[in-house]
């Protein structure tokens, strides 16, 4: 007598769990991430114990360790940065400008720039720092 073996079908794998995990990861990265234009050079902000929470929005001026400048992720010279900021300020009088300076950048490339930005009439100029321990 010949026994016929029943054709075994592989059980269909459910991908619902995979979707759940991917969705949770997506929401996590959306919440914890910050969508900022990164400077075309290395910028490590200075460490501060008593910084305030930084709200989003506004323009970001990056200053590299050697004094290189970038506005919203695009390399630019000082005059160009000021011209473009003046244009942005005309569109939004409450513009916030964040100066994201490298911790090792010399102050003679940062403080005069902050002064020039303030002289444009920008009402809110802040220095970006990283929270750190004492």
């Amino acid at each position, binding site marked *: 007598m010949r026994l016929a073996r029943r054709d075994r079908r592989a059980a269909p794998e459910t991908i619902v769990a995979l979707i759940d995990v991917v969705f949770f990861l*997506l929401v996590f990265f959306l919440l*914890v*991430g910050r969508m900022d234009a*990164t400077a075309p050079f290395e910028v490590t902000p200075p460490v*501060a114990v008593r910084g305030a929470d930084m709200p989003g929005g506004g323009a970001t001026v990056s200053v590299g360790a050697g004094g290189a400048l970038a506005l919203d992720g695009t390399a630019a010279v000082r005059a160009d940065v000021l011209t473009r900021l003046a244009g942005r300020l005309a569109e939004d009088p409450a513009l916030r400008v964040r100066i994201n300076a490298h911790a090792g950048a010399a102050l003679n490339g940062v403080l005069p720039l902050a002064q020039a930005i303030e002289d444009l009439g920008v*009402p809110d100029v*802040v*220095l970006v720092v990283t929270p750190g321990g004492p």
Partner: protein
Amino acid sequence: MQITRKSRQAATVSLVAMVDVLMIMLVFFMVTSTYLDLDMIPLAEAADDTAAGAAGAASAPATRGAAVIMVRIGADGAMVHRGQPLSSDGLADLVARQVADGLSPDLVLLPSAWADVQALVSALDAAAAAGALRTRVIRLEPQP
């Protein structure tokens, strides 16, 4: 004769395309987002100095006057007061002495042009920790 109609199976919706889209979005956000925890220190605010000073004077306890404490920040980042090196604790003592004398300490920082940003931020931190009500930074002329 009765004709029996075969029961129709509901068409299954494939979720594979959705997983693909989610995966692409996940990778996009992982790659383009920055995950640095950033704070800020205001350099210039909308309220002008006179208004802020007046508001500060109104809210501060009664004092006999303002005492200006000038602190230099050297190119090496060290703080100097009246020619003497000044530590963060020393600055706190200085401010505390002025407050004990009934004076409102007004801290003025004069950084060297070659001091780095971290030195200024550390000095501002020390000033805030010392309890200085008002801290000002003397700005430098642009490098020629």
